[in-house]
């Protein structure tokens, strides 16, 4: 099977290059048959990649330990469902996964994009196939890149999967994040195609905006599942450590979020054309940069793959792509003049622009902090690092400014907000802000924490007001009842109301983040029967009684499980179990380091989080780290809300692109002032 896989890699590589060569070097605009051949190249690459993937699956599921990759990441006693995640658990497999998914997305882009974008599609195929060929070349020519490499002998069993990856979150987290990174290639490809074809109206944005939302959903969900995994599996009771690899996933998320907002200005007002091009190119480059960070070992991180030369392939690709893309953008600079200019600072355009600056500012500061060890060593000859305190100092004020704009942006009028508009829109949210501020201050909150909660109230009030007004308008105009009006309102304006729902999710993240500042963490030693009491930041007391440790063998591991009984102010909440696991191979030999399973009792208010740190030999005195972590569930609730809003915004179907007039009417809907300068590729 490895021979077939190897062959498929070569086939994909050559087909990808060939399709890209035709796209960039021939005049296919005059040859419909050639244009079709280029586009079919995407399907051909897909077939090759599916064959390669099938070959690796076969190796994994048939326990062919002669294949180095299979021997390194699986074992006979690994539960079957983790065999699936073994596909992307290691460097080589994840490269193949990347190429396969890129081929799927590339083919989908060709299949789903309406034929009226025929001037762009062959270029899109050329770009996606070139990127796919690059990933395949890393497997074929990179040291330690080929998943089909065989060993000179066959080990009796594989080494098994790292226990920290043996977690349901880990089946979903990396592929989600990869899907986010990879799907960014499609908006990037459309942007470059528009530049190459000189089709610089808003057409390319319409062709790819659903893809941009899809990427954003994958990135958001991937990051959130990553937080969840870190919270449950790493045992430190936090969700985000500002580790370089975490930051690397945050950069493209920030710039993509900025892009999703600023394209609305281009669609409605014909402004920001150059900015949008730069943003999407930058976002794609940041996703490649993230890959480079994760795989090169340039910056030390707990999440990274082993150091290897593969990183330098990505560095070269990053530099070449950056130079080519920005050179191309420069040659088209004059064709990207805006159709309108900013008319007032009190306008939605300006609010979105400030939002963009804040998002890009955060992205820059996180990038700076991530690269600081390298920068300081190069400039001052001594390595300096910055940690979470740096990122918090810089990003909390910027984040609060963004939260404020989240409330302002959707309410303020396009072009120029009149005093009447401001009054009408902001009285209720402004009053809500003041009330929340006073209530939270009375509760004892101060500083940033107080501001976050007050702004959260402000933003939620703006969204409630928007929904309320939309529903009332439909009820009086169409005589619908409230539920029907709500349903139709959302179905008819999916992007707008999907966006509002996403904002609700974002508010949940902010509220959850506030809770993290009030975390309580204590170390205790107990003998069975002993108990400790912790004071919750909410004012009540929680008592943990240690019941004892039991030891048993399970699946592929030996487990020591410590059980604690938990009660809150005298009311029992049940028991919780924290485990220490020693994984073993099928011969009973220890593999990997011991890992910890957290004991958790969780509700909307707070999580009670217990880590069993072990019992010294020959004693009964066991060590625990016990935390009370407020509001942490709101991250996961926010994630679900955000996903729902994102899905609503991207859901296909609904109002189809009709005449230019209808599209303009649609863009105008709900806004009092006429929007001039809107241009829509129809």
């Amino acid at each position, binding site marked *: 099977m490895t021979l077939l896989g190897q062959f498929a890699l070569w086939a994909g590589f050559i087909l990808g290059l060939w399709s890209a060569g035709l796209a960039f070097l021939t005049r296919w605009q005059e040859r419909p048959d050639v244009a079709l051949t280029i586009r079919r190249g995407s399907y051909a690459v897909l077939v090759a990649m599916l064959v390669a993937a099938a070959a690796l699956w076969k190796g994994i599921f048939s326990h062919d330990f002669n294949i180095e990759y299979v021997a390194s990441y699986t074992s006979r006693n690994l539960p079957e469902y983790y065999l699936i995640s073994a596909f992307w658990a290691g460097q080589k497999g994840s490269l193949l996964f990347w190429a396969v998914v890129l081929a799927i997305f590339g083919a989908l882009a060709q299949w789903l994009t309406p034929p009226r974008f025929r001037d762009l599609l062959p270029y899109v195929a050329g770009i996606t196939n070139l990127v796919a060929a690059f990933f395949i070349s890393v497997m074929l020519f990179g040291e330690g890149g080929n998943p089909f490499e065989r060993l000179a002998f066959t080990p009796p069993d594989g080494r098994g999967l790292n226990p920290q990856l043996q977690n349901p979150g880990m089946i979903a987290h990396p592929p989600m994040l990869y899907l986010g990174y990879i799907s960014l290639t499609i908006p990037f490809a459309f942007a470059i195609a528009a530049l190459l074809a000189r089709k610089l109206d808003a057409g390319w944005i319409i062709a790819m905006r659903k893809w941009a939302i899809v990427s954003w959903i994958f990135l958001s969900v991937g990051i959130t599942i990553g937080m969840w995994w870190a919270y449950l599996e790493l045992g430190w009771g936090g969700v985000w450590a500002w580790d370089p690899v975490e930051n690397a996933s945050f950069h493209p998320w920030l710039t993509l979020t900025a892009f999703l907002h600023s394209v609305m200005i281009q669609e409605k007002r014909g402004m920001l054309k150059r900015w949008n091009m730069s943003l999407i190119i930058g976002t794609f480059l940041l996703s490649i940069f993230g890959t480079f960070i994760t795989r090169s070992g340039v910056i030390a991180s707990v999440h990274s793959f082993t150091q290897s030369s593969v990183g330098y392939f990505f560095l070269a690709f990053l530099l070449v792509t950056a130079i080519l893309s920005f050179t191309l953008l420069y040659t088209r600079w004059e064709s990207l003049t805006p159709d309108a200019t900013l008319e007032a600072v009190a306008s939605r355009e300006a609010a979105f622009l*400030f939002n963009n600056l804040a998002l890009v500012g955060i992205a820059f500061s996180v990038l700076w902090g991530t690269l600081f060890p390298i920068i300081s060593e190069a400039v001052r000859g001594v*390595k300096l690092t910055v940690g979470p305190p740096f990122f918090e100092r810089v990003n909390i004020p910027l984040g609060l400014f963004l939260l404020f704009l989240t409330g302002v942006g959707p309410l303020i009028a396009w072009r120029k907000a009149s005093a009447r508009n401001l009054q009408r829109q902001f009285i209720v949210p402004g009053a809500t802000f003041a009330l929340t501020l006073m209530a939270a201050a009375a509760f004892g909150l101060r500083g940033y924490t107080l501001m976050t909660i007050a702004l959260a109230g402000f933003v939620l009030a703006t969204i409630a007001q928007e929904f309320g007004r939309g529903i009332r308008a439909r009820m009086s105009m169409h005589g619908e009842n409230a539920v029907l009006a709500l349903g139709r309102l959302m179905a008819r304006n999916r992007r707008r109301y999907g966006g509002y729902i996403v904002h609700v999710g974002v508010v949940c993240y902010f509220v959850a983040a506030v809770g993290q500042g009030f975390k309580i963490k204590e170390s205790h030693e107990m003998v069975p029967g002993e108990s400790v009491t912790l004071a919750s930041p909410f004012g009540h007391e929680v008592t943990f009684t240690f019941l004892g440790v039991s030891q048993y063998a399970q699946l592929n591991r030996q487990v020591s499980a410590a059980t604690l009984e938990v009660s809150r102010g005298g009311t029992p909440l049940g028991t919780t179990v924290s485990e220490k696991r020693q994984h073993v191979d099928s011969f009973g030999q220890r593999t990997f380091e011991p890992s910890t399973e957290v004991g958790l009792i969780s509700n909307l208010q707070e999580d009670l989080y217990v880590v069993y740190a072990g019992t010294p030999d020959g004693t009964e005195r066991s060590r625990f780290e016990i935390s009370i972590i407020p509001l942490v569930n709101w991250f996961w609730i926010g994630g679900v809300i955000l996903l729902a809003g994102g899905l609503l915004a991207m859901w296909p179907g609904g109002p189809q692109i009709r005449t230019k007039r209808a599209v303009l009417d649609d863009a105008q809907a709900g806004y009092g002032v006429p929007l001039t300068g809107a241009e829509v590729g129809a």
Partner: protein
Amino acid sequence: MKPSTKFALGAAVILGSVTLLIVEGVKQTGTYFLTPTQLVERTQQDPSFHDVGLKVAAKVVKGSIHRDDAASRVDFRISDGTHEFPVTYVGIVPDTFTDENDIDVVVEGKFDRNNVFQATDVIAKCGSRYEAAWDEQAPTST
């Protein structure tokens, strides 16, 4: 004032704040990240460096780990091949922190005037045991 000028002012305020936050953030929270050699040389040149909190990346000297479980205190030595010095840490270290393997370690804390590193945090990265290249001896024999 033209709207675009007003906007440019607003943008300048935002970008200025970002720059200021970054510069101040680095000044207030930046931590030296050194090798043992760099640390020893710097403290010889400038004794006030003994009072600066910093991080050191090095290897743990095999056989140097002494655990005192009762006081949950660990003493060990770290080295980069050229310079070597003792480290003291009070707190829980992971079970993997043993002499069996080559351990790469990052210690955070202060290098006191007796040339003992008083660590406030120890991050151990297990050596190459599980990432080793495959060879005939590596797999467990039946």
